[in-house]
């Protein structure tokens, strides 16, 4: 089952204004940078983006923010993204802030046909407002619902023509769950290999979750906090 598309243009074909997207990555690590760049070029607007962060001011989802292409962010962390914080505080941007673990689990739930689950995270906080609270084992939990998206866009290290994916190190992060939760899932990979080249035992995301795959033309893989020690 060949899932290969020719290029990033074909990969993001069908992404329209006001759609909901999931985008893998944590900070700038493991983000689908080629697809994001193409969306910037394409100018699609009114997007609802589900992504742990929103990149930095001049890279990753930050580019879509600068361009006002995003109507709403569903994220866990704003962090050092000044434009994100500015648009949120000024009310230009709708923002749903979600605990990171709940965000990951809600994406997995969306892909796994689990419409809702209970978690202790966020009980007694703003996050719990309007949500059902129930005690289990004497501890209060809140009901969280599944998330899904019109398109999920993930980034992998290697992928084969059938859509099987392998991630590298901590660039895995949200990518596998989001791959599960997209109605259409696009995977951009650093290296595209023939079916059979990946060990079936070592595949992180089985191809069933991926509808389109392509090898990214170029990966900058920018580092957010370069911390080192001297030899």
């Amino acid at each position, binding site marked *: 089952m060949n899932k290969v598309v020719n290029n990033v243009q074909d990969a993001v074909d069908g992404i329209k204004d006001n759609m909901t997207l999931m985008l893998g990555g*944590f*900070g*700038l*690590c*493991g983000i689908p940078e080629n697809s994001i760049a193409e969306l910037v070029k394409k100018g699609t607007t009114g997007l609802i983006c589900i992504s*742990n962060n929103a990149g930095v001011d001049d890279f990753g989802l930050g580019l879509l923010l600068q361009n006002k292409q995003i109507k709403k962010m569903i*994220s*866990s*962390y*704003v*962090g050092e993204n000044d434009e994100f*914080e500015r648009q*949120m*505080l000024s009310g230009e941007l709708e*923002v749903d*802030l979600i*605990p*990171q*673990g*709940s*965000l*990951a*689990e809600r*994406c*997995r739930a969306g892909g796994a046909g689990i419409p809702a689950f209970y*978690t*202790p*995270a*966020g*009980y*007694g*906080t*703003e*996050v719990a407002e309007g949500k059902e609270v129930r005690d289990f084992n004497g501890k209060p939990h809140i009901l969280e619902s599944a998330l899904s998206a019109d398109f999920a866009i993930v980034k992998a*290290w290697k992928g084969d023509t059938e859509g099987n994916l392998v*991630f*590298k*190190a*901590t*660039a*895995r*992060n*949200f*990518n*596998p*769950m989001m791959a599960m939760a997209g109605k259409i899932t696009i995977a951009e990979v650093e290296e595209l290999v023939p079916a059979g080249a990946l060990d079936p035992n070592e595949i*992180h995301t089985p191809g069933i979750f991926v509808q389109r795959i392509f090898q990214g033309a170029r990966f900058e*893989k*920018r*580092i*957010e*906090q*370069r*911390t*080192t*020690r*001297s*030899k």
Partner: protein
Amino acid sequence: MGLDKTGIAKRIAQELRDGWYVNLGIGIPTLVANYIPQGIEVEFQSENGVLGMGPFPFEGDEDADLINAGKQTITTMKGASFFDSATSFAMIRGQHVQLTVLGAMEVSESGDIANWKIPGKMVKGMGGAMDLVASADNIIVAMMHSNRAGVSKLLKSCSLPLTGVGCVKKVVTDLAVLEINGGAFHLLERAPGVSVEEIQSKTEGRLVVNGDVPEMSI
């Protein structure tokens, strides 16, 4: 007077026990990894998906695909593993991590914590903090006793939006080690040269002082 950030990290490191998996938050908590007591082995989990974090890489060895939850480039130790975010928070929520150390803007005498938002002014986002504090049995907050304006961060009740309710068990500040239970901060240790009176005066929440309070040994 009182400890610097390194001192706080050193004191918290004394809380580590052999065989523990530990999650360290951004800031002071990260420094704790530098002071693991001799003879014990602990393993660091970072919620973005790594177990067995090592020190920062040597210059030139940085890998954009290998970072911690603070987005800093890191290395891994032998026996490390990588996993996705859902699995990472399964570890945290499922209480497989024995200790969580994180920073805070405010802590209340009932163990509430606030560290992610100042309405109208600043929103960092909660990241993994809400999952961590709601799940961990053993949470230590590392922070300065007062904020930059000199106002106590150990309060009767938090004024900022909460991160978690009744979850903090221990606080280590530049001035003291305090345990929270029964709706009060119990003073366990003083920083070297810091008096009980000073701690009392800088603690807005209920402070319980029982007998002689020893100085920390760092």
